């Protein structure tokens, strides 16, 4: 599904390298977690993959089902099936949540040469998905994320994921700012989307989210590289020992 090879990334404005040779393969239907201390490059990885401006790829490659995504615009990556659940979902006053999701879905369908979805079918789809995420229907009518609580914003991200049905989902610190109940709701939403054709890359600082979204593989990232990979037990190791010990262990 997602294939990252020796990826090197610099910050465009400063002469600073953030990713220093990341290798990562996520197979179809797999859930991988990337854990790491602050500043390790986790979020940069998610931004570079989704096409945010300000980063320069100096070496390496990233492909989604064999297609080079680094050359694509963000909207092309989305249409190709990539989805980033933002750590800080953006508030956009004046653009209705429904209008936004429908425009996005139909833009993706159009880009893939598929038929657009009618307004009534779309409404049905969104209502059903929102219900399973226990979202107040009123949130659908409001402007994107405006006046949403932290938990509501994250649930709105998962709703978009459910509506857009991407192949490769990247969750960037989706647990940050969530209380336990909100985290459970979000995790349930994600788990409901797990399937043999959909893969996940769950980026997180803490292990606790991984109790709810159990990964197949856990990677530890430090200083712009993946320094250790293993099964779910690796996440528990981090929880007990902290990152410093693991860094020392592999050094």
């Amino acid at each position, binding site marked *: 599904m997602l294939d990252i090879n020796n990826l090197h990334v610099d910050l465009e404005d400063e002469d600073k390298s953030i990713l220093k040779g990341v290798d990562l393969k996520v197979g179809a239907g797999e859930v991988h977690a990337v854990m790491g201390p602050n500043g390790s490059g986790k979020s940069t990885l998610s931004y570079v993959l989704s096409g945010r401006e300000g980063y320069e790829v100096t070496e390496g490659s990233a492909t989604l089902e064999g297609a080079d995504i680094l050359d694509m615009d963000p*909207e092309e990556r989305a*249409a190709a099936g990539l989805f980033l659940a933002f750590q800080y979902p953006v508030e956009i006053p*004046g*653009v209705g949540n429904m209008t936004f999701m429908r425009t996005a879905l139909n833009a993706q369908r159009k*880009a893939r040469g598929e038929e657009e979805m009618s307004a009534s079918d779309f409404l049905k789809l969104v209502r059903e998905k929102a219900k399973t995420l226990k979202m107040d229907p009123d949130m659908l009518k409001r402007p994107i994320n405006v006046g949403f609580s932290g938990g509501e914003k994250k649930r709105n991200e998962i709703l978009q994921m459910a509506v857009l049905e991407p192949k490769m989902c990247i969750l960037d610190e989706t647990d940050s700012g969530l209380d336990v109940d909100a985290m459970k709701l979000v995790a349930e939403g994600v788990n409901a989307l797990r399937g043999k054709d959909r893969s996940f890359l769950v980026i997180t600082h803490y292990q606790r989210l991984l109790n709810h979204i159990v990964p197949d593989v856990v990677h530890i990232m430090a200083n712009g590289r993946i320094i250790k990979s293993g099964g779910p037990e690796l996440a528990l190791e981090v929880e007990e020992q902290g990152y410093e010990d693991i860094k020392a262990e592999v050094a």
Partner: protein
Amino acid sequence: MAVPQAKYDATEARLAQMQRPAGAGWAEAARDAALARVREMGLPHRRDEYWKFTRPDTLVQPEVPEAALFDADEPEMFGTFDRLKIVFVDGVFDAEASDDLSLEGVEIERLAEVTRTDIHWARDHYGVLEARGQAPVARPLAALNTGMAGDGVVLRVTGKVSKPINLVYHHRATTSEAVLHHLVKLEEGAALTLLENGPAAARFNNVMEVEVADGANFQHIRTQGRDHERRAATHIFGRLGQESVFKSFTMTANGVLTRNECVLEFTGDDAVAHVAGAAMGDGDFHHDDTVFVTHDAERCESRQVFKKVLRNGATGVFQGKILVKAGAQKTDGYQISQSLLLDENSDFYAKPELEIYADDVACSHGSTSGAIDEEALFYLRARGIPRETATDLLTLAFLAEAVEEIEDADLRAEIVERLEGWLTRRRG
């Protein structure tokens, strides 16, 4: 104070070029008085403080600058609405294209007729609000209009009018000049929606005087046509009685020169006035909103919401003032003017002013100018929305606060559709 020589010359040159309509005694007197005001003030000059950001030259000079005609290939504005149409072509009333001027709850007449009638209610109103609006800031183009306008509509609204009256302005000759003066009087408890659309002429001078009596409700929605080369100077003078409502929204897309002035005065307590505008321009577009709201009554609410989208070197101007007189306690005044600059070549000039002589009021104003929010743009694109569509969505979102000022949902939808059309046409 004597008018400087250059200004005097320019004023006399313009007056000599214009043809003054004939009329009944009272109209003659009103026009004499208005032209005396013009001569006393002199027509606007680019060194006038009030015209600091907008060059008035082409509005003042005797020759009308040529304006190419624009053939719109889209559905007629407000075409799907049940309305009473009154059509002016290059400033001349077109009886054939207009509907029958009879509608329950309103007396509809034309200025050309009433100014020839000796006894008419209009004699006590024509030019009155315009003259009041000349202090503390001179608005000579409005006085010129009162002095020279040969036609316009004269509406006396006595009930709640069931459908909107739509003034439709066509532009058919490349150097035409239209000078129209409308008089609207809403009696106690009356209600009217007035629509205006179209470019009117190569050069348009429009004045509307609106008396809103106690408990009356006036809704005004205007679009200024698609012609780009036309020039327009418009004035709305409104006076609000107790518990009355006045709402005016203007959409402007295109136009090398537009100056829209709105002068409102609260004279009765507990009244509400909202003035809003959404303007979008490209290239040599120049759009100026100049608003002056005077609170001279208690517990009145005024809102000014003006949004401008500027690209490829377009210019936007906002001059807005809230004057709260001593005794106008509990005034709620709000003013916001914002521009969205889609590139680095476009300019926005804003001059927000508050002048307050009462001690128990809530007044606020804000003015911003900025580019498309990159964070928001990336968020939309990351969901699969192409850059251009995402930019349009954010542009419409920026204009939304002004458009929201339109009370009627159908009319609001009509305006949003036109805004979307403008954006779509500008895609590469």
